[in-house]
């Protein structure tokens, strides 16, 4: 029997085939103990092989932390067991794929994963529960249909994304598809993109106003633009740089208002070179391009990029694709028609209202397939591939809203397409509405997840699905986005109603919570980021949504948008709206709130109990932490009133207050002098590593130190926004540290004596 390598020989790009062979050898070397685990970890990440929850062998089963007895002790990275199943991310540049590729993805999901294909918020696919030994054959089978997993993860150029309606959009300047494709190909494995300290994301959009490209949240965002020169229309791009979500979100800044099409690739290359040379390498928390631009200033960054451009060795690939741009076109299966007298099946009108986009090309439509939580089965994927063959030709796109778009559907075919989608269980309406909740994997599979984003999203979907069309239209078209933690993979900052997972400890029991984030803007390519207004228990979030949306409907003025409504009523009122839902009933009264959606395990770690001495100190600290939360909220109010100096000052005070809360667990007489608090905090919690959890490290403490040591020279909206985000994260970290100390104390471990002396207690 031939192997996949033998069977697919000649059908794979030779370079990719060789790379996969090398990776297979690296797997063998690691198994033989001849490759360092850290080196292997980065190697596999650059091939898209990611770790999953519980791959460290520890799992709390609701009663105790259980050691998962994997067959071998071999690791595929620090604290990552070899035998633990992982995730395989698969890059789909600009989300474009054809039916044969989708068929292959379906086969891989069945044979190596759990039968499910998951579409991500960056137009990738993910397979979960994959064994590392199977990944070379997965990669070969993908390569045979023109897909690579190279640089799907790791410190590299990630999937290049683009509007899924590029080329059929009614408001775009021109089709960005061939440019996105060229950028993805050019930067894949490019030598200038191998020395990054962090990932690098590129997005393309055909216009400024819509949301589809989300360019504002990317390291490099390219928006199509045209200019008239000597009577001829010249194509180019507005280029934005330094955007990003993550823990500390930043809007991308306009770097160049018109980059001619033949200068686009060298510009991206130049940006990459500056980033590789000057970007942070050691501290991952400050290693994204946005931090480099903040540090240098946009003008200096632009100057460095311009200088780099001047010395770049010429490369024919910069412009060799451009003659093909004019020839780029997609061939529809059927000619243009109109929806006239066709019999329309039951449910069609609602589906048509939310899921069908009338293309720029007369007689054609793009139809969105709503994928609940971004998931579809292998069987459904094959059915979608067949429907694409039957109705559209080769035209499929994944979307950042975790759906699939069928383009170039002749309009008269829409009823038949809807019937077939219904048979496949894919005919649900609601694409792009409040029902179409976006969620990252969260605690389902992600190692960093704190709360169940998918569980919550599923609950919201099930509550809203029956009454979607009974909702006021202004509510129906809102966006909900949920992340399992502050890292924002669910893009909660740009939702109308955003949520990110966190936890709180009350009476020594942990309760899953979500921060409520309001004020984000989906339109204008993610034009504004929302801010957190407070935490509510996970089980209260659906009620919070009902309450906020009901008030919006009641008090909306004319055509006021949700974002404008939130701005008008102000943060204080927003906070007041969620306060009734913040209360946590006693465990004995309502145990349901002490577990997460779709997970019956109690949201606790071990059998907790707190000694009397530590308990007293913790009570004082909790009070201080609550005060810190209040201060950061006050900072938001000042930001809202454009008092940036006050906002900065309050956010800084919030951080020192939270630091003081922790210091008091060891040194109760620390006082309120900021210099003393910061010094004591540094020696007791930063230098000792006590603050950092295993994933975040001490990065959040650096926010405090930076602000303490270098107060801002000028106060701007961006600076105030950033310091508030940082303060919020710092407070979250102090909460986590505080809980960890309490648990250790409860287990009888030495935490630290409470004393009035000044010597720092090293732990």
């Amino acid at each position, binding site marked *: *029997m*031939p*192997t*996949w390598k033998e*069977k697919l020989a000649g059908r794979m790009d030779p370079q990719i085939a060789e790379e996969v062979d090398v990776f297979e050898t690296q797997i063998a070397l690691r198994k033989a103990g001849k490759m360092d685990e850290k080196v292997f970890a980065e190697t596999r990440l650059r091939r898209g092989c990611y770790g999953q*929850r*519980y791959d460290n062998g520890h*799992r709390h*089963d*609701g*009663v105790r932390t*259980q050691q*998962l*007895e*994997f*067959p071998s002790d071999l690791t595929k990275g620090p604290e990552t067991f070899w*035998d*633990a*199943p992982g995730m395989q991310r698969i890059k789909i540049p600009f989300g474009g794929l054809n039916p044969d590729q989708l*068929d292959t993805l379906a*086969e891989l999901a*069945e*044979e190596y994963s*759990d*039968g*499910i294909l998951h579409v991500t918020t960056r137009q990738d696919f993910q397979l*979960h*529960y994959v*064994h590392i030994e199977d990944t070379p054959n997965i990669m070969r089978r993908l390569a045979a249909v023109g897909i690579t997993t190279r640089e799907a993860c790791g410190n590299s150029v990630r999937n290049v994304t683009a509007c899924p309606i590029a080329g059929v959009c009614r408001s775009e300047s021109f089709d960005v598809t061939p440019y996105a494709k060229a950028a993805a190909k050019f930067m894949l494995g490019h030598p200038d993109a191998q020395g990054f300290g962090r990932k690098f994301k590129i997005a393309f959009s055909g216009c400024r106003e819509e949301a589809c490209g989300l360019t504002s949240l990317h390291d490099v965002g390219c928006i199509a633009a045209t200019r008239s020169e000597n009577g001829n229309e010249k194509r180019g791009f507005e280029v934005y740089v330094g955007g990003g979500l993550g823990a500390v979100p930043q809007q991308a800044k306009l770097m160049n208002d018109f980059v001619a099409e033949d200068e686009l690739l060298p510009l991206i290359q130049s940006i990459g070179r500056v980033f590789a040379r000057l970007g942070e390498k050691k501290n991952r928390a400050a290693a994204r391009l946005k931090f480099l631009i903040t540090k240098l200033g946009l003008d200096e960054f632009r100057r460095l990029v311009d200088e780099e451009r001047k010395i770049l060795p010429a490369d024919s690939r910069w412009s060799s694709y451009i003659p093909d741009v004019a020839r780029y076109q997609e061939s529809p299966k059927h000619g243009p028609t109109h929806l006239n007298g066709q019999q329309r099946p039951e449910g069609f009108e609602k589906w048509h209202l939310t899921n069908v986009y009338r293309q720029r090309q007369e007689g054609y439509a793009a139809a969105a397939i709503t994928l*609940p*939580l971004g*998931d*579809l*089965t292998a*069987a*459904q994927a*094959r059915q979608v591939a067949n429907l694409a063959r039957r109705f559209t030709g080769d035209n499929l796109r994944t979307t950042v809203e975790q759906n699939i778009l069928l383009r170039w559907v002749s309009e008269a075919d829409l009823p038949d397409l809807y019937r077939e989608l219904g048979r*496949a*269980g*894919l005919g649900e309406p609601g694409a792009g509405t409040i029902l179409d909740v976006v969620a990252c994997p969260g605690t*389902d*599979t992600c190692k960093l997840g704190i709360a169940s984003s*998918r*569980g919550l999203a*599923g609950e919201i*979907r*099930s509550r809203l699905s029956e009454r979607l069309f009974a909702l006021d239209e202004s509510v129906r078209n809102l966006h909900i986005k949920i992340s399992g933690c502050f890292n924002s993979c669910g893009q909660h900052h740009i939702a109308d109603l955003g949520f990110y997972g966190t936890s709180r400890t009350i009476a020594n029991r942990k309760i899953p919570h979500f921060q409520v984030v309001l004020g984000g803007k989906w339109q204008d390519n993610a034009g504004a980021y929302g801010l957190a207004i407070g935490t509510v228990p996970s089980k209260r979030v659906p009620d919070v949504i009902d309450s906020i949306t009901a008030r919006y409907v009641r008090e909306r003025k004319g055509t006021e948008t949700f974002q404008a409504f939130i701005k008008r009523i102000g943060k204080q009122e927003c906070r007041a709206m969620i306060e009734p839902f913040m209360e946590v009933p006693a465990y004995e009264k309502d145990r349901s709130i002490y577990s997460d959606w*779709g*997970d*019956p*395990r109690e949201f606790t770690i071990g059998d907790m109990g707190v000694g009397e001495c530590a308990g007293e100190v913790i009570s004082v600290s909790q009070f201080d932490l609550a005060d810190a939360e209040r201060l950061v909220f006050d900072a938001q109010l000042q930001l809202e009133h454009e008092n940036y100096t006050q906002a900065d000052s309050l956010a800084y005070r919030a951080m020192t207050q939270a630091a003081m809360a922790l210091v008091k667990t060891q040194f109760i007489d620390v006082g309120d002098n900021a210099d003393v608090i910061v010094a004591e905090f540094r020696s007791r919690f930063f230098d000792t590593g006590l603050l950092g959890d295993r994933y975040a490290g001490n990065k959040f403490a650096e926010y405090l130190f930076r602000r303490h040591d270098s107060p801002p020279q000028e106060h701007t909206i961006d600076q105030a926004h950033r310091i508030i985000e940082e303060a919020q994260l710092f407070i979250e970290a102090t909460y986590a540290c505080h809980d960890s100390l309490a648990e250790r104390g409860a287990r009888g471990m030495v935490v630290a004596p409470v004393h009035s002396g000044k010597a720092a207690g090293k732990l």
Partner: protein
Amino acid sequence: MELHRLGVKFFASDPASIHLEDLIPVFHGWIQRQVIPGHVLIDVHDYSHIQNGPGILLVAHEGNFSLDMSDGRPGLFYYRKTPTALPATEHIAAIVKSAVQACALLEKDAKVAIKMDEGLVIANDRLEAPNDEATLAELKPAVAAALQQVFPGAAFNLSRANSDPKERLAITVQRV
């Protein structure tokens, strides 16, 4: 044939009585007690939001168990992912035994009754076992012998479930 990726499904007696969400705590309980011999039970995944999907999935290092809803026919599905170092017939028998054990546990812990007179054996490897008559002819004797090991004395009819070359080779098993 080096076929270690193999799945076995037994169908529920009363599909209407199944409430998928009820399975979540049951599977968590199985992890707590690590009740399936030879398996490191890792996690539970809720796919109940997908029509005709894997339903509720219990992930183990060696294979996945699920209260599967494929084709609209609920049942206990077990997919083996790792080799066992056993000869082909014994390997298949081990997979069937694991599925039978899970069925018994399901009936005991979740009151979900599973019929043992009809099943499906799926060769989950398109390279080793393409969906054609030749592969069926090769695989059928091993499956029949394995069933004899697990259900001594019972007789079964084995037939190819579908002929679509894109689908995996699946063998319908009917007790006679």
